[in-house]
């Protein structure tokens, strides 16, 4: 038989002013299993808590009901009091007779008093069925994996490494840097992108706590928060990176030329290549499908080319001076243990080929990302503005916004950065070539952001034509090679038609290829549009559905660099707060399956929003099992199990039914 003690708080006058304490106490004494009832002016004060502790220590009570304010603020305080007196901290229930009683019914003293009695009756009923629960602690691996080495991933890695944590930064490409390194200048400050990013790339590579794993992808994931076991696949490079000095000899003598994806195929690279001049690490790789050695080996079994390795001796051309070529290189799989993960795999831009109405076959119609490369000093034209079709200098350029964004046929969302980078492109061009004619077609101009509106006003003042209206209806190639652009101007309320030498399409930002698959490996879910989803837009913006897995940057949705960095540093601090203590607390208020009762129906498995439930073999049958580390304590499974096999600790069915009975009865 439990021995329940009821402690009624006056909260000064806050409760006692509306509730007749004595009447309530006399009533509480009549409740089943209640062995003593006491009151105090402020139960939460030290002397108040001492009253409870004393009774526990003397063995008078072994279950406690505190009738006072709200458990939301005070439950932890009284739980600690129980624990310090040697009683299980979950043998406590609070009756909220202040916030939900005396305050709300201040002018109805007898109503408030009667309600207080019933609330206490409900708490007593619930505590009668309380079970002793233990918060559990698991070991936490003190390391973090950051996946994606764009600007977001780099900042997260640096912050974590500076806090003394071991960081593995996994990047799919040969070099880190992501999309930002491809940009020419960046709004709103117009810094040169490479100039501000390359020093950070070097810092990442040289940091003693960061292990850079390039040209690699996550292959498999086991475990959960605190103890993820991750298999990373390092793709074969066919060049020994321990020996490669980045001299670039192979990238010059390799005879196999292929379109250069880094510049969106606007120029060529070799099969042996360094991704871009400022690559970090500056190491070469061989692109196997295009390499003549591998092609010939597959066909004839004899090597047709080994120029990168051996050079062309008759011509006096030397091969790799570092002896780094390694045709027998293999994919390598490495296993890493980390406590937490941050996903920062960024975005890709839509290809122009989707938009038949804009003449994608014309070389002079380019995407905005391609245009960034054209403007960039490291791009295919070394920063010189040239028409891709004939190399002449364009006199008129039209830019079209929202291509694939805010369009039911493709993506309903706004890609957020396009309005600003279109203005940026206009500004770069106008400042360099004041005579150039620029027509910017917008649905409407969205420049909400710090210093953005000023940027817009300044750019317009440079003489850029902004045309607001619906969508541009078509871009056609005229017989003279020029492009005819047709749209509508809402301000003039008339159709517009103009001739341009080049057209730039602000194509939509999309999640990087493989985002959904990567998310699935970690049980982190994506939204409808395929971006990784945060747990709660407002309260948990960097947490994913999977505990211990965080996100930052464009993998969560389109955003600019300042926002990506802010989010990545937030994710780093959230991950650090989790990892640094070295232990992880698993709440006792979670669900548990009684496998004897489980009928193996599997109903609960897909219900859990955290993927905590799986069917596991138990006594020769598949039975549900809830992984305590993953359960977040929502209770959904317990209320759905048709066999009543799931107990939701802290809010058991038995406890809630007892409360209902206590409240419903006369």
């Amino acid at each position, binding site marked *: 038989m439990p021995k329940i003690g009821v402690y009624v708080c006056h909260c000064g006058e806050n409760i006692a002013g509306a509730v007749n304490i004595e009447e309530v106490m006399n009533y509480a004494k009549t409740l089943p299993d209640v062995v003593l009832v006491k009151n105090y002016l402020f139960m939460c004060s030290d002397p108040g808590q001492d009253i409870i502790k004393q009774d526990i220590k003397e063995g008078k009570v072994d279950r406690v009901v505190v009738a006072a304010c709200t458990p939301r603020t005070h439950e932890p305080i009284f739980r600690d009091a129980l624990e310090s007196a040697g009683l299980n901290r979950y043998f406590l229930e609070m009756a909220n007779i202040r*916030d939900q009683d005396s305050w*709300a019914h201040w002018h109805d003293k007898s109503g408030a008093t009667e309600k207080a009695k019933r*609330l206490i009756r409900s708490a007593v009923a619930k505590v009668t069925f309380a079970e002793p629960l233990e918060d559990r602690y698991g070991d936490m691996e003190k390391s973090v994996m950051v996946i994606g080495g764009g600007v977001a991933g780099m900042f997260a890695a640096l912050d974590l490494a500076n806090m003394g944590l071991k960081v593995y930064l996994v990047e799919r490409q040969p070099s880190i840097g992501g999309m930002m390194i491809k940009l020419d200048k960046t709004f709103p400050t117009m810094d040169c992108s490479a100039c501000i990013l390359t020093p950070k790339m070097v810092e990442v590579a040289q940091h003693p706590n960061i292990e850079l794993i390039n040209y690699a992808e996550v292959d498999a994931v086991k475990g959960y928060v605190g103890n993820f076991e991750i298999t990373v696949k390092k793709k074969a490079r066919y060049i020994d990176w321990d020996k490669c000095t980045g001299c670039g000899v192979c990238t010059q003598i390799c005879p196999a030329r292929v379109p250069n994806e880094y510049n969106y195929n606007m120029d060529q690279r070799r099969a042996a290549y360094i991704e871009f001049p400022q690559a970090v690490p500056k190491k070469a790789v061989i692109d196997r499908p295009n390499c003549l050695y591998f092609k010939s080996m597959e066909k004839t079994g004899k090597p047709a080319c080994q120029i990168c390795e051996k050079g062309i001796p008759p011509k006096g051309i030397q091969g790799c001076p570092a002896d780094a070529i390694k045709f027998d290189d293999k994919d390598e799989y490495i296993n890493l243990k980390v406590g937490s993960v941050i996903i920062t795999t960024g975005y890709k831009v839509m290809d122009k080929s989707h938009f038949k109405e804009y003449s994608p076959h014309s070389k002079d119609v380019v995407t905005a990302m391609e245009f960034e490369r054209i403007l960039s000093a490291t791009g295919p034209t070394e920063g010189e503005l040239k028409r891709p079709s004939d190399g002449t200098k364009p006199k008129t350029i039209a830019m079209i916004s929202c291509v694939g964004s805010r369009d039911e046929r493709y993506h309903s969302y706004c890609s957020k950065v396009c309005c600003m980078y279109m203005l940026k492109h206009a500004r770069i061009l106008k400042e360099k070539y004041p005579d150039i004619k620029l027509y910017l077609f917008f649905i409407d101009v969205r420049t909400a952001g710090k210093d953005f509106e000023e940027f817009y006003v300044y750019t317009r003042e440079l003489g850029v034509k902004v045309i607001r209206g619906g969508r541009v209806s078509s871009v056609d190639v005229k017989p003279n090679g020029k492009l005819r652009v047709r749209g509508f101007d809402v301000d003039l309320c008339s159709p517009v038609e103009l001739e341009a030498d080049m057209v730039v399409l602000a194509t939509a930002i999309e999640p990087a290829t493989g985002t959904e698959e990567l998310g699935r490996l970690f049980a982190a879910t994506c939204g409808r549009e395929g971006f990784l989803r945060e747990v*709660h837009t407002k309260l948990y913006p960097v947490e994913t559905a999977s505990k211990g897995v965080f996100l930052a940057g464009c993998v969560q949705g389109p955003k600019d660099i300042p926002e990506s960095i802010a989010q990545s540093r937030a994710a780093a601090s959230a991950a650090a707060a989790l990892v640094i203590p070295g232990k992880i607390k698993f709440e006792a208020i979670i669900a548990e399956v009684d496998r004897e009762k489980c009928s193996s129906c599997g109903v609960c498995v897909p219900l859990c929003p955290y993927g905590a439930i799986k069917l596991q073999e138990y006594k020769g049958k598949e039975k549900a099992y809830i992984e305590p580390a993953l359960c977040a304590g929502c*209770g959904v499974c317990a209320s759905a199990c048709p066999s009543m096999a799931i107990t939701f600790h802290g809010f058991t069915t038995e406890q809630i039914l007892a409360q*209902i009975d206590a409240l419903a009865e*006369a």
Partner: protein
Amino acid sequence: MAWEPRLIVIACQWCTYQGADLAGSLRYSYPPTVHIIRVPCSGRVEPEFIAEALKKGADGVFIGGCHFGDCHYKEGNYKAIRRFKLFKRLATDLGVEPERIQLEWISGSEGKRFAEAMTEFDAKIRELGPNPLKGGANV
């Protein structure tokens, strides 16, 4: 003595329960016929809770959860609303008016709305009269 309704509110701890606390601290009043049972999420509510409450004579049951998109556990409130139809049917099967079961999203910042919703709920149940299964609790 005159009949007074006995109302049970099953409130999500992240929203409606907080909304009730806020109503109190702002001193918005509502009838003391309302009694809250705290649950972790509106998705925790079982059909059995509703059946038990009605059978034991509660005159009305109100489920309070977070607005869509705000559920602390992502989609517990969607699960609650799906079950809500079942709850209503369950009431009908027991011979109780389905309007005695109500569900609403009230956030932790909506103290005023909580008080209003409770006042409306109380008035509605008074109109319906005592739970036919028990004739209400005579206070």
